[in-house]
């Protein structure tokens, strides 16, 4: 009788263990998949470009073009008030962060940097 009970217990417990293993496997697969999808979105889901000053608080006008798109050709203009001081084409490849140094004189009150990529435009400026 006692042995029968033990046998029942073992068989019963095996079924539960199979169930637990099944749950663990499903969880591990789901979890790993979600981690993978999240990483994929964060790393390769970028499709944008941005322009920003290297230093925010001073009068340094060096700026950065950060490109996460497939377009590589950019054009930038530097304007002092309404006058174009400099205009140049630059290549920035996907994933690249290009630092562009400016050494300009006779600056007006407001320096604007306009960057073009195809039909898109970004603009940053500083009031000096």
């Amino acid at each position: 009788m006692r042995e029968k009970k033990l046998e029942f217990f073992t068989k019963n417990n095996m079924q539960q263990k199979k169930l637990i293993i099944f749950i663990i496997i499903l969880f591990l697969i789901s979890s790993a998949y979600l981690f993978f999808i999240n990483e994929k979105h964060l790393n390769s889901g970028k499709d944008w470009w941005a322009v920003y000053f290297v230093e925010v608080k001073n009068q340094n006008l060096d700026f950065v073009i950060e490109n996460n798109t497939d377009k590589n050709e950019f054009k930038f203009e530097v304007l002092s008030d309404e006058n174009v001081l400099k205009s140049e084409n630059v290549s920035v490849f996907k994933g690249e962060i290009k630092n562009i140094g400016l050494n300009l004189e006779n600056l007006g009150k407001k320096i604007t940097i306009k960057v073009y990529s195809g039909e898109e435009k970004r603009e940053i400026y500083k009031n000096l």
Partner: protein
Amino acid sequence: MIDFIQSQLIFYVAIAGILFLPGYLLLWAIFGKGKLGSLEKLVASFGLSITLLNFLLFVFSKIGIRLTAMPIILGIVGILIVCGLIYFYKNANKAEKADDADKLFNFSKKQFALILIFLFLTFLIKTAYLSNSVIPTATDMGHHMYWAKMMSLTGSLSTYDGMPDFIIGEHTIFSVLNILSGVNFFSAFPIVILYLVNIFSILAVFILTLRIFNNKNVAILSLLFLGIIYAVSSPQAKFVSGGVIGNVLGNYFLPIIFYFYFRAFKFLSNKEILRQAQDEKNSKAFLSLAIFLTFGMFYTHHLTSFVFLFSFLFLIIFFLIVNYANLEEVWKKTWRVVFSWEVLATLAICLLFFFFIFTPTYVSGKAVDTAVGSPVKSTRTGLSLENINSTVGDPRMALGIVGLIFLGIFYQKRNFGYAIVVAWPVMIFSMSVKPGWLFVDIPSNRIGNYLTYPIAILCAYGFWTVFKNLKINNLVRVGYFLLIIFVFSWGFRDSATLFKQSASSSELTQTFEASAYLAQSLGAEDKILKDHNYLTADAWIKLFFMRGYRFPESRGYFKRYEDPTNPREMCTLYMISEPASENGKKCFAESGTNFLMINPIYDSGQFMKTNNFDWVYAGEKIGIFYKK
């Protein structure tokens, strides 16, 4: 790839070590191997581990130990060793004893296959939904992860700047897993953990149903009604992706706590007094664990605790009324368990922790006043039946009511579990429909969401009763069958409509990269205001700065500035919407705000019109302005 696999391995080892092992060994120490099924141990160990972990952290915090990896590991190992020693001391010379109730877990091949299929579908539907919303955008999740990260950085428990809406248990597991495994808060980790909690809440309902009805089919059906149908809608996968941590955890704690209370008072079903000393001992242990888990819940979510206290009180009253003729017998049976030294000692220790070691922030007169009283606001005066039906799902509600009627017909008044299955949904229903009767002053829809779990049990019971009870005539069966078809189609349709397009990871990464840029440029005196209306994942921005929950300040939803019942400060609105106005200038002067993060498509024009701002960062969906 190797890094990914390595980080995954460490993460899962940390989950096993923190969220399962302590509770599992505690159950071993108390019951040995035989009293609970392996599945029950696994499901219960999750909540017990969380509670043990919290209590451990409270002790560390009280005696001034910094919450870093080494003390936490040593503390956990200490718990494991103590539990292991108790187990070997108590059980070293005992032969393994099978528990009669474990027959419950001996499924037929068909039943076992059905369980596997239901579990597979549960995981499949939820994973499919979450894969669309796994990227860290949810506002609530952002808020919670800030506090979890703050705990990781400071090595101390958060005080939440006195805010009662955050509770320590919502953040400890995330923080500890981050500390031990190094897993990134911006990864899928928070959602994966909530997903795990959600799955275990379904399993908790499964074992509770199995124990109460002593019927495998009803339990298997509960998997169907909770796991598969309405798998996505609130409070399930939708709450997981939304980071509604307290509710998700609460929906695990409620059934598992009821499970332990049921097992503690299961002996009331028997007419004779407790048969053996061992049964009495087990009841005391179950009750002690129920109390321990109840306090674990108190440390995790206030609303769930509130719902539980009302439901539990009603449960006791209901059970006593139903057993009015046998009150003397009930008292004779229960007093030896309730007033045993094990139970009283557990209660005393929990109370000691609650009032003297670590008291949750919501335990204050102000918070109680906020939640208790006659409701006035329209959102708190109760849901209409239509609202309730849309919360739970029309057909599921109908099926649940049918289940409740059948439960009434076949009611076993001595069965404490039946009282649980009645009291739990009835009280939640009353709290959400007629809160004024109970002096409940909490948003009614938040309470209504709790109906889902007990209703699923009633659905399962009703389903099984109709199809297996030969006394019911065929016409009723056909009508019921049509209702079931309706439930299935509605439930799956409900899930399907909630499947959404993936939030734009491109917009998300713009927000994060701009935040990282600003974090580099920021001085100690700088202050930021960001916009909540048009920026993606703006609640996560604060994790880049870690300078306070309200850093950066936020322009909230526009309607909030117009809510006459809740007048609020207007500066966060003025400084973005009309920066050049007198109000705007005054606000800038008073607050010292000098950085603004906005979506340039909607909010750049007003800044470009004045000479007071530099536009220093320009992306497609995010721009940063600097006020000199």
